[in-house]
Structures are given as structure tokens and as C-alpha cells.
């Protein structure tokens, strides 16, 4: 009999099928087992105790709901008026922390995806995350650094910053820009850097070139401007949303592996 089955003696069959171990749950969410224990104690993600020794198990539905929430957590974080630091596991206060976590993501992705996907998705996430630091260093309005998290199960990477946003950044070098929609379009179509006189401004064009040639998706919001990109999209169509955010909010999807 498998160890898991032994532990679950006493639970009915339907319940057993819905339980997963703490190790498996940690793997799915992308955090350590210690983190899950801490979240359990604080009530952020409650476990189900079962078996004689009272080991922690998780309801599959709870894990799925939590994974869906990575995006919601990031959105909530950038939409609140008073900035607070995100959970430590999702918060990269400095570029060095982001680099370490990006390499960890790359390593985890390489277990389920071929090199092409690993290389390109990590490059896109790396370019967007570092853009946040490049353009906000020394000027963060409240919380320095970025939110960076991912769900291997949902094939999603989420990045967010409470920085100045693309309009404010590009307006320094193109004062005639008056709204986030135009600024977002410029960022994805023209080589124009908010860090003049340095030769920069390739980052989001690079991101675009990868997304439209591969089975990935990109959702990008800055201010009240929103852009959705997928494979074979030729045009940049920016929409105006009702809700405005501070900084940038990005979701990279890689549901179809190359």
C-alpha cells in the first residue's frame, strides 16, 4: 500500500481523491513546504489534517483556487491606494532578488517545457521585470521593486510594479504624449527610451517579436491602457479601460508549449 493511502485510511474514497500532499502542493504553487506551513498557521492557505499523525494535506480545489489567485493578488496589490509590500515569496524588492527568482523559475519551467519555451518565456519575463527597475530606480512612488509570481499549473507568469508607469516615463523624452494609450503603443512600436541620452528602448519591441511568433500570450496594462497580444497579431491595438492602475501589470501566458 502506498504511504499516502495508509495515511488516508479513515477518509472516504471521494475525499482521498481530492487530497494532495504538502510536498505536491508546494511544487504546484512554487513555494517551499515551510512557506505552506506558515501560510497554514496564518490562515492564508489552510490545510486539512488527516491520518494518525495529523500530517498536512490540501484539498485539490483549494490549491486550484489559490493558483487562480496569483493574478488577483497582483492586481489587488497595484490597485490599492496605499502601497504595502507583497508577500515575501512574490516580492522582489531589488533586481538581485528578481534575478535569483527568475533563474529559479527558469529551472522549474525546464522540468515541464523544452528549451525553446524556457529560453523565450524567461527572456520575456526578464526583460519586463528589469524594465521596471530600469525606469523606476530612485523614483518609486511608494513600494520599491516588483511583484513576480507564476503558476506552472496555469502556465502563467505575473509581473507588476507600482512605479511611474509608461506615460510618465516616456513623457520625459516625448512631452506631447498625453495619455497612457498612446504611450503604451509607442513603447511597443518605437525605439524610444525614457532614459535618454542612453541608447535604449528595445525591450518591449523584443517582447512583442517573441509573443507574435510563438504560442504565447501577453496582457499588459499601464495606467488605464491595456494591450493584449498573441501569436500572429500584426497590429498593436490598445484599449482604454475604466480602471486605472499605478505602474505596470503584466500576465504572460505559455499554455501551449513549443
Amino acid at each position, binding site marked *: 500500500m502506498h504511504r499516502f493511502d495508509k495515511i488516508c485510511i479513515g477518509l472516504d474514497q471521494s475525499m482521498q481523491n481530492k487530497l494532495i500532499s504538502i510536498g505536491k502542493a508546494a511544487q504546484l504553487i512554487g513555494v517551499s513546504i515551510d512557506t505552506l506551513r506558515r501560510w497554514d498557521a496564518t490562515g492564508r492557505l489552510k490545510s486539512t489534517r488527516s491520518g494518525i499523525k495529523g500530517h498536512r494535506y490540501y484539498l485539490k480545489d483549494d490549491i486550484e483556487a489559490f493558483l487562480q489567485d496569483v493574478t488577483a493578488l497582483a492586481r489587488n496589490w497595484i490597485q490599492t491606494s496605499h502601497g504595502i509590500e507583497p508577500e515575501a515569496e512574490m516580492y522582489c524588492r531589488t533586481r538581485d532578488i528578481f534575478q535569483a527568482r527568475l533563474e529559479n523559475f*527558469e529551472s522549474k519551467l525546464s522540468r515541464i517545457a523544452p528549451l525553446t519555451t524556457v529560453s523565450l518565456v524567461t527572456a520575456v519575463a526578464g*526583460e519586463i521585470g528589469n524594465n521596471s527597475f530600469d525606469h523606476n530606480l530612485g523614483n518609486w512612488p511608494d513600494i520599491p521593486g516588483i511583484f513576480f509570481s507564476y503558476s506552472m499549473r496555469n502556465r502563467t507568469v505575473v509581473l507588476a510594479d507600482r512605479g511611474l508607469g509608461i506615460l510618465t516615463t516616456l513623457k520625459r523624452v516625448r512631452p506631447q504624449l498625453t495619455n497612457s494609450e498612446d504611450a503604451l503603443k509607442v513603447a511597443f512600436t518605437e525605439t524610444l527610451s525614457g532614459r535618454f541620452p542612453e541608447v535604449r528602448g528595445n525591450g518591449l519591441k523584443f517582447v512583442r517579436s517573441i509573443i507574435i511568433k510563438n504560442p504565447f500570450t501577453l496582457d499588459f496594462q499601464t495606467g488605464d491602457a491595456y494591450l493584449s497580444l498573441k501569436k500572429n497579431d500584426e497590429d498593436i491595438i490598445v484599449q482604454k479601460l475604466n480602471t486605472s492602475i499605478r505602474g505596470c501589470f503584466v500576465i504572460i501566458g505559455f499554455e501551449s508549449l513549443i
Partner: protein
Amino acid sequence: MIVQLNKFGTTLVSRPSGKEAWLAFQPTLNEVPESEEIIVDFEGVIVLTPSWADEFLSPLRSKFKDNVKLQNTDNPSVAATLATLAKQ
């Protein structure tokens, strides 16, 4: 000479790390005549972005111009980065 980029890391994504690589490599490059061929080898690099490359490859090309040759550029993000820089 051959510059093996994987000696700077295999996930080369940020501007500061590209700039640091360029600065750290100056003592080595200063010993190389500008007429010598510089082969940049991407073997083993898993992730490259234009931000890193712009801080290392761009000044390298400014200094050694057409003597800079690239090899093992098949990695997808390496190819995409080089294509982006070529449009500059």
C-alpha cells in the same frame, strides 16, 4: 580571441549585469589589438535579452567593429536578441 559568454552566466538579462560583465572584461580586452578577430561564443547561454546584450555586445562592436564574429547563436532568445539589436 574567443569570448565565452557562459562564463558570465547562463541567464543574461539585466543591464547592470551586462555593464558589469563589460567592465570586468576590460583588462582582458585591453590586451587585444583592435585588428584581432573577436569570436563571441554563445554556447551554453540559456537566456539572453537585448538589455544585457546592449551593454556588452554593442560596446564590443563599437571597439572591434567588423572583427567581432558570433558563433553558436541557435538558442531562441539569443537569436531573438540579435535580431532586435540588428534593427537598431
